[in-house]
């Protein structure tokens, strides 16, 4: 065989091997598994756009610069619009900083060990594989790179999340989350990404500026069954009678935390992609309904409730109305 012929044969073999490799991976659960495992394990740098929608209408849009270095180091900085530039979050696996230069405030949170988080996420993902509908939708190009497209639906067929996962490095190049009406609620997509990044020294370090208020978040509490949590808190939980489509009560992940010195029940509700929390504590507080960010706090029947999460305002209100202590 001539040299040209050999080269042609090698090229064809490589193309066949490549297409075979791609063809092998069309199991949506396996793609999501690899995507979950790749977070914190793959180095990359890029620029992406994050857009938030409310009732199908865009309400916010920012551009972020993202740096990731294995293992588990991540720095995300808002670069546009101008009024939000410099807001950032930084993680090194155990510590999570969130810094808002406009507010002069930095929040420090201790994270569980990354290995434990990964194990938990993979276990939960297997549960999602059993309880949700997953669909492989082929390959599309995002930021100039081929990506597997996977869609996750509730058993009733309502979309929950769509992911575009890099076919080589398994990083999510684009994600869309849907609200309980099937409308896009958030979209995050890279416009530029490199998997051969170079990081300047200090990229993953953060020292709060001298005049910045540093708030240390409370540590993650022990999770337990609802019955045990109610016993420890000394009162019964008031659970919502209405839950948005796809959500269920995480009855083995209830916690009892201390708020202003008193016990409070923390009830999480999840659809696998999103989670919202209901906090309930005994005692009085401001009688007015207080809205702050994505939360509602109100007083009812001798208890104070706070509902918070990424639900739409209308869904939050509906869940709130269905809670009767």
């Amino acid at each position: 065989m001539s040299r040209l012929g050999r080269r042609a044969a090698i090229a064809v073999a490589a193309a066949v091997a490549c297409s075979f490799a791609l063809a092998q991976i069309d199991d949506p659960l396996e793609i999501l598994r690899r995507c979950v495992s790749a977070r914190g394990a793959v180095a990359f740098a890029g620029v992406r756009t994050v857009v938030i929608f409310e009732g199908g209408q865009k309400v916010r849009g920012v551009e972020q610069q993202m740096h990731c270095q294995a293992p588990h180091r991540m720095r995300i900085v808002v670069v546009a619009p101008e009024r939000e530039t410099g807001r950032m979050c930084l993680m090194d696996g155990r510590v999570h900083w969130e810094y808002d230069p406009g507010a002069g405030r930095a929040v420090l949170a201790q994270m569980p060990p990354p290995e434990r988080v990964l194990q938990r996420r993979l276990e939960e993902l297997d549960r999602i594989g059993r309880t949700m509908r997953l669909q492989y939708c082929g390959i599309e190009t995002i930021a100039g790179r081929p990506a597997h497209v996977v869609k996750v639906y509730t058993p009733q067929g309502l979309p929950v999340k769509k992911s575009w996962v890099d076919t080589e490095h398994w990083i999510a190049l684009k994600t869309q989350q849907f609200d309980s009406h099937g409308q896009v609620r958030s979209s995050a997509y890279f416009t530029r990404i490199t998997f051969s990044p170079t990081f300047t020294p200090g990229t993953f370090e953060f020292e709060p500026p001298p005049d910045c208020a540093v708030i240390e978040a409370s540590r993650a509490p022990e999770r337990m069954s609802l019955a045990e949590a109610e016993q420890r808190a000394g009162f019964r939980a008031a659970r919502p009678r209405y839950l948005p489509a796809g959500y269920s009560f995480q009855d083995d992940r209830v916690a009892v935390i201390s708020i202003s010195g008193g016990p409070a029940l923390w009830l999480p509700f999840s659809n696998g992609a999103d989670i919202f929390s209901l906090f309930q504590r005994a005692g009085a507080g401001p009688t007015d309904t207080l809205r702050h960010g994505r939360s509602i706090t109100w007083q009812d029947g001798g208890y104070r409730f706070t509902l918070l999460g990424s639900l739409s305002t209308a869904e939050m209100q509906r869940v709130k109305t269905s809670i009767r202590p």
Partner: protein
Amino acid sequence: MMCRQVRQELIACWGSTDELEAAAVEHLRVCEACRIEAALLRETRVLLHSLPAEHAPSGLTKRVVARIADEQQPAGWWSRLAAWFVPEGSPAWARATAVGVAIALAAVGGTVLYHGTTSPGPDQAIIATTVAGGAQLAIGQQEIEDLMVRHQTLELTQPLADDPGVHLVMYTSY
């Protein structure tokens, strides 16, 4: 829309198409030169924000706030009372006499009008309630912010959850 108008808009938003009006977005779709302009602006902004942050010297904010407070500090009651009776720039003896007369009159008037009650007036009561309510609200917000951080930490452990960068945008008040 003309290239010049589109480029002015692009400069205002550093080339981000998210904040452009529909006509400008449509123009970008067909005009390559403006697209390149937008890309250059975005690139410039990214490079600018890649520079390490410069921290202000320690205590700068406190010093600036203290200076502002000093400069805005109202004049003492003596000067203000004097200024009410006697024009600015009058001799010091005239101002002192005016204040003395005013104090004497106030003492006499106060004695005549005194009814023996020391409870705060309605205005004072309203002010006290408002301050207490504000403090309560502030405590409530701190509490909620703590719950928000706890919630986000839990959310990050969800298998299909987005990374913290998306939460950074999602959980900002708007």
